[in-house]
C-alpha cells in the first residue's frame, strides 16, 4: 500500500514538473456542504478538464491564469470562475430549481447521480418522517414509496410491522428487506418467542430507530439496485441515513434544534353495538351466555329488568358479601367503549450539529419518546441517543463514524388469538369485543378479593375478565442496542480511494411474559401463574473493504469502478426460562414459581443459537457516455454457511442502462415542454441460501418427558420431523425492470413509471409432508414465484406563485404474483393452520386463503379465485348450511393495487398536507366481524328477532329453501364463521386519511432579531379516518391488520385488536 502510494506520488510529481504548469485546486460542494463527486471542471474553450473526486476535490493543470473554468454538474447551475488562484478553496454549487438529478446513496453507500441509475429508487426525506405521532419508522413509510407494502399487526403501540417490497417472492423463506443504516446492516427481526396464537406483542426491531433523527430513507426495490448487497438484499433494501451518519458538512456555526410534540392516541375502530337485546339464545334471558341472542331489554316489550347478580352465589358469598341476595340490572352497557383509554404520546428531540473547521463535522441528537397505547397496560418508551462525525486528516485519510444507543421499553397485555369463542391463550382482546350487551364489566369486580383470581359474569367463571388481564398479565421487551459504524478512507489518488468500514449492531432483548396466578384462559400453565423470561443477544459484524476509481477515458466516456469484499456475520443466541405455578401472588421472580422449564408456550425451545456467515466479492462498473448514456455492470459472488460445501457458492451478475433523450438530442435539450426524460432498463440476479442447519439431520433430545408412578423421570430421543436435505442448493432470483421518468411543462409535471418482473426459481422451500412419510416438513429446491407489477409516481405542481404552492403527488403500486409448484406437491401451508390458512398452490397467487366453506349446489369450491361466488348454498333438513369436508379457496388476500395521493398546499409559511391511501381488493377472514355478527352484537343484527328467518339457498332436493330457522340459529350456526369461514371472508378494500398536517413556520424576517434560527408549529394526525366499504356496516372493521404477525402472510384476523388514531401538535425551534 505504502509503496503504491509512493509510486503514484512520484509519478504525479514527475508529470507536474515536466509540464511546469500551474495546478489549480479546489473543492466543490452542494449548498449544504456535502462534497460533490464527478463534477466536470473544464477550461473554457478547450478539451482539457477533469472531474472531482469523491471528496469533491479537483486539481487541474492550467497554462494560462486568465482561463475561465467551467464547472458543471447535472441538476446544478453551471459555475464559471477564473483560474487565477492556485487554490480556489471551497465552491458551492446551487441546485437548479425543480431539478430531480439529485445524488442518491446506492448500494454499499455509493453515491450516484440519480439520472445515471438504471433502476427505480424511492426516496423519502426527513420532512415526511419527522414530527409524526408514530415511533415506528416503517409505519411512517406507508404509502410514501410505491412498491413497498406495509401492514401493521395491530394498533398496539410498539407491535410488530410487516414490510414487503415488490411482493413476497419466497414460499417459505423470509421476506423482510435488508435494513442498512448509515451504510451497514441493521437487524430488523421480530423475535417472537411463541407462535402467533399467543399474540403479536413482539416489536419489529426497526422500532429502535428514531424517526426524528433520520435524514432520509432510500428504498432500493429491485435486484439491480441491491446486487452488491448479495443475497441479503434479495428482498429489497431499506437504506436509512441518519442525521448523524449523513456527514453533512456545514459551514454554519453550531445549530441546536429542539422539538417537542404531544399527541393523543385513541382507538380507531369499534363496532357499533345494538342496544335492543341482551345475552342468551332464542330470546330467552341468558345473561351468562357468550352470545347475545337473548331477551329484549326493557322498556316494552322487554320482559325483564334485572337478573340474579352474577356474584350472588354461594361460592362467592365469602368474597362478595355485598352482592348476596342482590339483583343486577338488565340493560345495555357500554363497557367495551369505556375499556379503551386516550393515550398520550410525548416526544422530545434535541439535536446539535456543527462544523469543525472546514474539514470536519459533528452531529448529536437525543430523543425521548413515550407512547401510551389506547389499550390499558400498553406503553412504549424509547430513548435514542446518537453521535456522528467525520474528519478529514491532513494525510489523505478521512475518518468517520457513528454511534447510536437505543433503549426501548415496550409493554402490553397479551393478545392471544381468539376464534370468537374464548381465547386460545391469555388475551386482552380475545373476549372483549363480543362482550354481551348487558354485561357492564366496570360494575363487576375483576378480581376475587380472597383468591386474587379473575372473576366475571359467568357462574362457571370460564372467561378471563378483561380488566383482570390488564392488571395481571404483562408481556414486553426491553432492548439495549448499540449500532453504528466506523470507516477509514484513504485517497490513493485524487480519483481513486479505498475504504475500510466496520459496521456493528448488537443488542440484548429481554423478552418477558408474566401473568399472576388466577387467570382463566390458556390452560393450567397460564392459570397457575406464568413467568417467562428470554434473553436474546443479536450480533451483526459487517466488514467491508471497498475501492472506488473514477476515470475520464476520453472526452465523452467516463468510468467509475467500484470493487470490494464483504463479510457479514450474524449471530443470534438466546436463553430463557419459563416458570409456572406462582407461589405468592404478585411477584414475578423465578424463585417464586414451582415449575421451571425451557420450552415456550408453543413448545419451541427457548435456548438456541443460530449463526450465519456470508462472504462476498463484488464489483461494479459504471460507464457514462457524455451526459446521456449510462451503463452499469455488476456482480457478486457469495459464499455462505447455510449450505454444504459444493452448493454454497453462487455468482450473480447484474446490468442496467439509463438513457436521457433530453440530453442526447439537440432538439430536446432546451424544450420547455419536455424538461427531462429518462429511459432505463435493468436485468439482475440474486440468490437465496435458505436458513441455517437445514442440510443435516438431527436428533431431538427431550429430557424429562414423562414421570412414571414410581417417580422415575424418563427421557426420550426422537427423530426430528424435519427431513434434512444435504443436496439443498441456493436459489437464483432473476429480475428485469424497465422504466421511464421525466418532467414536463416547465417542470410542473413529473412522473416515474416502472415495470418489473421477478422470478424466483427452484425455491428453497419448506415443503410440508404428509406425516405418513414419517416426517412433517423438509426443505427442497422446487417451485417458483413470479412477481410482476407496476410502480408509478407522478406529481403535479398545480399552483406555483410567489406565495402559493400546491403540489399533488400520486403513488400507484400493483403487484401480481403467481406460484408454480411441481406436480407432486399439492399445496404448501404458508401461514395460519392447515385447515384454515394461507397457501401456495400451483397457478394461484401466493398466500391464497383456504378454509372450510358451506357447500353450494354447483361445484365444491365456495368462492372461485376471482372472488365470485357460484351456486346457492345447500340447506339441510334443519335449515342449516352444510360445511364442506375439505378446504377450498376462500379468497386472495393480495390487494389488486394501492394508491396514495399526497397533497401539499402552502401559503408563505403555512403548509397543509394530506395523505390519502386507497387499497383495492384483497380478502380477509375476520373473526372480529364474525363474532360480533354471529353473536348478535353489532347493529347489523338489530332487527326484530321474533321473526323466523329462511336462509337463502336450496334444499337437498334442489328446491328453494323454505325451512324456517330462528335468528339465533341462522346467525350463530350459519353466519358467524364458527362452522365454515367463507361467510366471514370480506373484501379488504379500504380508503384512509393516513396523515394530515398543518404547519406554520415563522418567517426568517420576524426571527432575525430573536435568538431563534427557525420556529415552527405543526398540527398533525395519523389514521384520522377510514372506510372499508365491503365489510359489514356496523362492525367498523379495519382490514389493515393481521393476526399472523410479521411474516409473508396476511388475510387472517383472529380478534387481533383494533387500530389506532393519533393526532396532536409539535413545536420546533432552532438556535
Amino acid at each position, binding site marked *: 500500500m505504502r509503496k503504491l502510494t509512493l509510486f503514484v506520488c512520484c509519478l504525479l510529481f514527475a508529470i507536474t514538473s515536466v509540464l511546469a504548469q500551474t495546478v489549480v485546486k479546489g473543492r466543490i460542494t452542494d449548498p449544504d456542504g456535502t462534497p460533490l463527486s464527478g463534477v466536470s471542471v473544464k477550461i473554457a474553450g478547450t478539451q482539457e478538464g477533469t472531474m472531482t473526486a469523491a471528496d469533491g476535490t479537483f486539481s487541474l493543470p492550467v497554462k494560462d491564469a486568465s482561463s475561465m473554468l467551467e464547472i458543471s454538474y447535472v441538476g446544478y447551475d453551471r459555475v464559471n470562475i477564473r483560474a487565477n488562484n492556485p487554490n480556489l478553496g471551497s465552491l458551492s454549487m446551487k441546485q437548479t430549481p425543480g431539478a430531480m438529478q439529485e445524488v442518491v446513496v446506492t448500494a454499499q453507500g455509493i453515491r450516484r447521480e440519480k439520472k445515471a441509475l438504471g433502476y427505480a429508487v424511492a426516496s423519502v426525506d426527513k420532512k415526511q418522517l419527522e414530527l409524526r405521532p408514530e415511533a415506528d419508522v416503517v409505519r411512517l413509510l406507508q404509502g410514501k414509496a410505491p412498491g413497498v407494502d406495509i401492514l401493521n399487526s395491530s394498533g398496539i403501540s410498539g407491535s410488530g410491522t410487516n414490510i414487503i417490497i415488490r411482493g413476497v417472492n419466497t414460499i417459505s423463506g423470509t421476506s423482510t428487506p435488508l435494513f442498512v443504516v448509515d451504510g451497514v446492516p441493521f437487524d430488523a427481526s421480530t423475535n417472537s418467542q411463541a407462535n402467533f396464537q399467543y399474540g403479536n406483542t413482539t416489536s419489529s426491531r426497526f422500532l429502535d430507530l428514531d424517526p426524528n433523527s433520520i435524514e432520509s430513507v432510500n428504498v432500493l426495490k429491485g435486484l439491480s439496485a441491491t446486487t452488491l448487497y448479495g443475497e441479503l438484499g434479495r428482498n429489497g433494501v431499506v437504506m436509512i441515513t441518519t442525521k448523524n451518519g449523513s456527514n453533512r458538512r456545514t459551514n454554519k456555526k453550531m445549530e441546536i434544534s429542539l422539538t417537542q410534540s404531544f399527541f393523543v392516541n385513541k382507538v380507531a375502530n369499534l363496532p357499533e353495538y345494538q342496544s335492543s337485546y341482551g345475552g342468551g339464545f332464542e330470546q330467552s334471558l341468558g345473561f351468562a351466555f357468550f352470545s347475545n341472542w337473548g331477551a329484549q331489554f326493557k322498556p316494552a316489550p322487554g320482559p325483564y329488568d334485572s337478573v340474579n347478580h352474577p356474584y350472588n352465589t354461594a361460592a362467592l358469598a365469602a368474597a362478595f358479601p355485598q352482592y348476596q341476595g342482590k339483583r343486577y340490572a338488565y340493560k345495555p352497557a357500554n363497557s367495551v367503549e369505556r375499556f379503551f383509554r386516550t393515550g398520550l404520546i410525548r416526544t422530545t428531540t434535541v439535536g446539535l450539529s456543527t462544523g469543525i473547521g472546514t474539514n470536519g463535522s459533528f452531529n448529536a441528537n437525543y430523543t425521548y419518546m413515550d407512547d401510551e397505547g389506547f389499550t390499558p397496560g400498553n406503553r412504549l418508551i424509547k430513548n435514542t441517543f446518537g453521535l456522528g462525525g467525520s474528519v478529514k486528516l491532513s494525510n489523505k485519510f478521512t475518518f468517520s463514524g457513528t454511534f447510536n444507543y437505543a433503549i426501548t421499553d415496550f409493554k402490553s397485555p397479551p393478545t392471544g388469538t381468539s376464534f370468537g369463542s374464548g381465547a386460545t391463550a391469555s388475551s386482552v382482546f380475545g373476549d372483549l369485543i363480543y362482550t354481551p350487551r348487558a354485561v357492564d364489566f366496570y360494575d363487576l369486580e375483576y378480581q376475587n378479593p380472597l383468591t386474587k383470581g379473575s372473576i366475571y359474569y359467568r357462574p362457571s367463571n370460564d372467561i378471563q375478565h378483561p380488566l383482570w388481564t390488564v392488571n395481571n398479565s404483562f408481556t414486553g421487551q426491553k432492548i439495549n442496542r448499540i449500532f453504528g459504524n466506523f470507516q477509514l478512507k484513504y485517497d490513493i489518488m485524487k480519483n481513486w480511494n479505498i475504504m475500510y468500514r466496520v459496521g456493528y449492531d448488537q443488542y440484548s432483548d429481554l423478552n418477558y411474559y408474566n401473568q399472576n396466578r388466577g387467570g382463566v384462559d390458556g390452560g393450567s400453565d397460564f392459570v397457575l401463574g406464568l413467568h417467562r423470561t428470554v434473553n436474546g443477544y443479536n450480533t451483526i459484524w459487517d466488514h467491508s473493504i471497498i475501492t472506488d476509481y473514477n476515470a475520464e477515458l476520453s472526452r465523452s466516456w467516463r468510468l467509475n469502478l467500484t470493487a470490494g469484499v464483504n463479510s457479514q456475520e450474524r449471530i443470534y443466541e438466546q436463553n430463557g426460562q419459563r416458570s409456572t405455578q406462582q407461589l405468592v401472588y404478585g411477584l414475578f421472580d423465578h424463585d417464586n414459581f414451582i415449575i421451571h422449564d425451557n420450552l415456550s408456550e408453543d413448545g419451541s425451545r427457548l435456548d438456541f443459537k443460530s449463526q450465519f456467515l456470508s462472504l462476498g466479492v463484488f464489483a461494479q462498473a459504471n460507464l457514462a457516455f457524455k451526459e446521456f448514456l449510462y451503463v452499469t455492470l455488476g456482480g457478486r459472488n457469495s459464499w455462505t454457511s447455510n449450505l454444504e460445501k459444493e452448493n454454497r457458492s453462487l455468482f450473480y451478475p447484474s446490468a442496467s442502462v439509463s438513457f436521457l433523450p433530453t440530453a442526447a438530442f439537440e432538439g430536446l435539450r432546451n424544450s420547455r415542454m419536455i424538461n427531462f426524460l429518462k429511459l432505463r432498463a435493468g436485468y439482475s440476479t440474486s440468490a437465496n441460501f435458505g436458513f441455517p442447519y437445514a442440510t443435516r439431520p438431527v436428533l431431538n433430545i427431550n429430557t424429562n418427558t414423562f414421570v412414571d408412578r414410581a417417580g422415575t423421570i424418563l427421557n426420550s430421543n*426422537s427423530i426430528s420431523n424435519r427431513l434434512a436435505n444435504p443436496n439443498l442448493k441456493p436459489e437464483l432470483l432473476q429480475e428485469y425492470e424497465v422504466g421511464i421518468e421525466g418532467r414536463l411543462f416547465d417542470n410542473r409535471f413529473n412522473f416515474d413509471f416502472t415495470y418489473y418482473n421477478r422470478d424466483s426459481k427452484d425455491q428453497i422451500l419448506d415443503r410440508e409432508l*404428509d406425516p405418513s412419510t414419517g416426517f412433517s416438513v423438509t426443505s427442497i429446491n422446487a417451485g417458483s414465484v413470479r412477481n410482476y407489477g407496476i410502480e408509478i409516481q407522478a406529481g403535479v405542481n398545480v399552483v406555483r406563485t410567489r406565495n402559493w404552492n400546491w403540489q399533488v403527488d400520486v403513488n400507484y403500486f400493483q403487484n401480481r404474483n403467481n406460484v408454480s409448484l411441481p406436480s407432486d406437491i399439492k399445496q404448501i401451508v404458508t401461514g395460519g393452520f392447515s385447515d384454515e390458512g394461507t397457501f401456495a398452490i400451483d397457478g394461484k397467487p401466493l398466500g391464497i386463503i383456504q378454509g372450510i366453506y358451506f357447500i353450494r349446489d354447483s361445484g365444491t369450491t365456495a368462492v372461485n379465485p376471482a372472488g365470485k361466488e357460484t351456486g346457492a348454498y345447500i340447506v339441510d333438513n334443519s335449515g342449516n348450511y352444510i360445511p364442506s*369436508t375439505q378446504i377450498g379457496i376462500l379468497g386472495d388476500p393480495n390487494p389488486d393495487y394501492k394508491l396514495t395521493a399526497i397533497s401539499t398546499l402552502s401559503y408563505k409559511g403555512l403548509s397543509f398536507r394530506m395523505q390519502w391511501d386507497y387499497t383495492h381488493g384483497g380478502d380477509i377472514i375476520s373473526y372480529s366481524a364474525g363474532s360480533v355478527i354471529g353473536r348478535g352484537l353489532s347493529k347489523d343484527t338489530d332487527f326484530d328477532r321474533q321473526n323466523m328467518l329462511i336462509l337463502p339457498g336450496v334444499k337437498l332436493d334442489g328446491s328453494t329453501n323454505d325451512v324456517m330457522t330462528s335468528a339465533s340459529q341462522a346467525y*350463530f350456526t350459519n353466519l358467524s364463521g364458527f362452522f365454515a369461514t367463507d361467510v366471514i371472508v370480506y373484501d379488504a378494500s379500504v380508503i384512509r386519511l393516513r396523515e394530515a398536517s398543518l404547519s406554520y413556520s415563522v418567517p426568517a424576517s420576524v426571527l432575525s432579531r430573536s435568538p431563534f434560527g427557525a420556529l415552527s408549529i405543526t398540527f398533525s394526525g395519523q389514521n384520522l379516518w377510514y372506510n372499508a366499504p365491503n365489510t359489514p356496516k356496523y362492525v367498523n372493521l379495519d382490514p389493515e391488520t393481521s393476526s399472523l404477525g410479521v411474516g409473508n402472510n396476511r388475510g387472517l384476523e383472529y380478534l387481533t385488536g383494533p387500530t389506532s388514531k393519533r393526532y396532536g401538535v409539535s413545536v420546533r425551534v432552532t438556535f
Partner: protein
Amino acid sequence: MSMKKIMILAIAVASLGSCTKKLDELLVNPNSPAPELASARLYLTQVQLSFADVFSTASNSGGQYSRMYNMGQFTYLNASRPEGFNGIWSSAYTGVFKHVNALLPIATAEKNWVDVGIAKTLKAYTMMTMVDKFGDIPYTEANLGTENTNPGVEKGSDVYAKAIALLDEAIVAFKTTPVNAYPGSNDLFFGASNATGAGRWVTAAKLLKLRAYNTTRLVDNSAASKINALLADPEVTRSFTDASYDLDFKFSTKQANPNSRHPRYNANYQATGNAGDYMSTYMMWTLVQEKGSGSNNDPRTRYYFYRQTTTYASVDVNTASCAFSAPPSHYPAGPSAPYNLSPMPYCLLVSGYWGRDHGDGTGIPPDGNLRTTVGIYPAGGEFDANQGTRVSLNRGGQGAGVHPIWQRAFTDFLNAEAALTIGATGSPRTLLESGIRKSIAKVVGFPSAIGAPAPDPSLVPDAARIDAYVAKVLAAYDAATTNDQRLDIIMKEWYIAAWGNGHEVYNSHRRTGKPANVQLTKDPNPGSYSRSALYPASYVNLNQNAVQKASVASQVFWDTNPAGFIK
C-alpha cells in the same frame, strides 16, 4: 490497474481462505446432536408416549360416536372433521411407526429383545387401530422419507394381516434369550424389569391377536377356530385369573414439567374449577338409571363419574336449557317427568348426573362447574362420595389413571360374543358373569392400586351389592328369547366395562350394532353414523395420492353390516 486487481484479489483470497473453515463449522447445528447418537431405549419412551396419543384420539372419537363420550355436534360429519384427525395421523406415523423402525435395528444389535417385542406389539396395535379408524391406509409406502413423499394407501385387510404377523414376530422376540438389559422403568405398561415382564408381554401380544380375530370375524370364516386355539393357549389362559396381565398404559400424578397425567384428568380437573368435557347422558343413564336408580344402580357408578353438584338447584334456562323443552319428537315416547327414565334418556338424569345429550351442538352454557365429570376410574379423578363440589387441579387420584388397552374382563366378553355368534367354545352366560365380576373387581380395587385416598367404606360396594347387580343382569339374560337380545346384554356389559376405551366400543358397535338402545341424536337428521373417519386434513391436503372419502358412511373392511345399521 493491474496492481489494483491484484490487490483486490489478494485481499479476497486472504479473507476467504481464513473463512472457509468457519463456513464448514457453521453447518453443524449447535442445538441438537447428530442422529448417530440415538439410544434405542430412549426411542422406546417416544414410541410409548406416541402410542398413548394414538389411543387417546381413537378412544375419544370412537367413544363419541358410540355414546360412551358426549358428541357435541349435531351431525356425525361435524363430529368427525378431517382436521380433527391430524394429531392421530402424525402420532401414528411420525411417532410410533418412525421410532419403532429406528429402534428395531439398534435394539436387535444390542440384544434388547424385550424392547424389540414391545416396539413390534405397539406398532401392530397402532396399525390395526388406524385401519379400524380410517379403513385403507398408507403402510408399505409409508415412512420412507424422501423415497416416497406421496405414499399410497394399502388395503385395510392387508395391513391387518401384517399387524398379526408382527405380533407373531413380537412373541418370538419376547422369548429370545439372553436379553442384554430389560427395559425396567422404561416400560410404561408392565415395568418389564425381568423375564416376568417379558412373559406378560407374550400374553399381551397373544390377547391382541385374539382381539384382532374377533374384530375381523365377519370377514373371516376361520375366526372361531383361531379364537378357540388362542383361548386354549396356556400363555393366554394364565391372564384369566391374574389381573396383573391387564394391558394398561399407566399415567402418574406429575402435574407439570412434564405433565404425566391421564389426558381426561387434564381436561376435566382444571385449575379454573371447570370441567372441560361433558359426560354422555346415555352412558350415565346406563349406569345410573337403566337398571333402576338409587341402590340398584351399577356398583361402578361412583368410580366412573364424579358429580360437581348432587342436586339440580342450579338448573335454569342459562345452564340447562334442554330442561325447559320437551324431548325431540323423534325420540320414543315415554314417561318424562321429573327426569326421563325410559325408554330413552333425555337431558337431566337423577341426582345431579349433569351431562349432555348425544349430538347436542347448541351453544355451550356456563356450566363448567356443574357438569358431571370423569371419576377415579380410569382417569385417576375423584371418587364420588356425594361431595358436590367443584373440580380442582389436584383432586382425587391426581391423574394417575390408565388407558385400558386390554383387560381380562374384555377377554371374557369377547369370548361370550364369539361363543354366541360364531360358536366359539365357552358358555356365554358364565362368561358374561365372569366379565362383570372381573370388571367390578378391577374398578373397586383401583383407588388403592394407584395410591389414591381410600373411599368412604360405606360407599364402597360390598359383595351383596355386587351380587345383586350381577343377578339383575343375569335375570335379564335369562329372560332374553333371542340370541340377538342375549348379544345385546353381553355387549352392553362390555360397553360398561370398557369405560375409558372408546375405541373398543366403537369397533363393537360397528361389528354388532350393540348396545341397541342408544340415545338418538338430538337432531333428527344427523347424517350417516361415522362408519369410518374421513382422512385427516394433513394427509388429504399434502399427499398427491390422497383421495378423500365421499362420506363418513364408508365402511372398513371388517364391517360388512348393511348401511344404516346403526344410527
